[in-house]
């Protein structure tokens, strides 16, 4: 009887340990996280339309049906990323995510300078350089310091009704995501 109780106690403690280990390891071993979804869209340093239906191996995306979005992944180890876009829409916003898909910075059209999408994502070291001499291309950009290497941005825009669709698509098409030389 004592042996059985001891076995039960061990199994419960073991189950607890396994539970904690699994929960902590899921973010590192999941093959259907935001990064794999975005990698399936295509190459890096360019914007891709965010699809609602799931790519093979990914579940459908939980996104507001009244929004259109575009996403771009980049690696700022060598050069900062420069993200721009031109156009007028009822509302747009942009989020910067790290490799784990965590939202580390976001702005919307009201917090941007002159309602224009123009921002630079740089590592702390690159930021020191940027503050010393700002390249002419990034004169009016919002500078964002992010301590990361790989990451991605998602630009989304509100489509109140179908009459706005072409204008919003034009805005999302105008977005570009390039290394800042």
């Amino acid at each position, binding site marked *: 009887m004592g042996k059985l109780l001891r076995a039960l106690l061990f199994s419960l403690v073991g189950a607890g340990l396994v539970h904690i280990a699994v929960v902590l390891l*899921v973010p590192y071993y999941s093959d*259907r996280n935001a990064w794999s979804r975005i990698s399936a869209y295509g190459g890096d340093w360019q914007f891709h339309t965010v699809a609602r239906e799931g790519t093979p191996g990914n*579940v459908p995306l939980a996104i507001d049906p009244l929004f259109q979005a575009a*996403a771009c992944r980049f690696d700022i180890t060598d050069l900062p990323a420069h993200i721009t876009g031109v156009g007028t829409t009822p509302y747009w916003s942009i989020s910067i995510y790290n490799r784990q*898909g965590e939202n580390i910075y976001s702005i*919307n059209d*009201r917090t941007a300078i002159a309602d224009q999408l123009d921002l630079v994502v740089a590592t702390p070291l690159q930021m020191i350089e940027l503050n010393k001499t700002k390249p002419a291309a990034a004169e009016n950009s919002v500078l964002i310091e992010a301590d990361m290497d790989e990451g991605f941005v998602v630009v989304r825009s509100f489509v109140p009704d179908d009459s706005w669709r072409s204008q919003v698509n034009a805005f999302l098409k105008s977005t570009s995501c390039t290394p800042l030389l």
Partner: protein
Amino acid sequence: MLRNVFLALITLVIAFGGGTLSAWYVVTRFDGFGALSIGQWTSHPEAGTPFSDPYAKARAAREGAFPLGSTEGLAFYAYNDDQGRTLDRQCSYKIEGNSPNSRFWTLYATDRRLTALSPGTDRLPAIHSRQIFRKEDGAFMVSVSPKAQPGNWLATTGTGRMVLVMTLYDTPVGSNSGLVDMKFPAVTRISCDG
């Protein structure tokens, strides 16, 4: 001897099986700690940020969603009506009251994985605050039903459970300044066809 081996095997099976199953259940069903609940509406302001807890992180890694940032907006989910019954896609509901401060909001119905339902051609998949009719005092009433309704109508389709999602865009609700008026509309069941 054989009994000891048997006990050891049982222990291992319970430890690995129970640990994995409970982890799987929690990751697919549990949204994480730090929920912000007002009436029937729940939100997780810290979900999808580096400050979220391990359960929310594990769940986010399985969903692969692009969570909204704090300056973008905040999504609130309603799983139950005001009587505590789960929301059913075949039932009619009314959402009545006022909304917290935001630039605009959208409202739509989803399945349990939070994918928006598509109500079919020529029906709006969602309604938003800039297109709805309001009463004199600014309050609104939205009918959520599979059948056509007068006024503000959010069409649903199919069978099974549903979740109502109200996303506030450009809102101070997520910040804990305490200065925000937290008024949320109530979800009330009117009738059920099933």
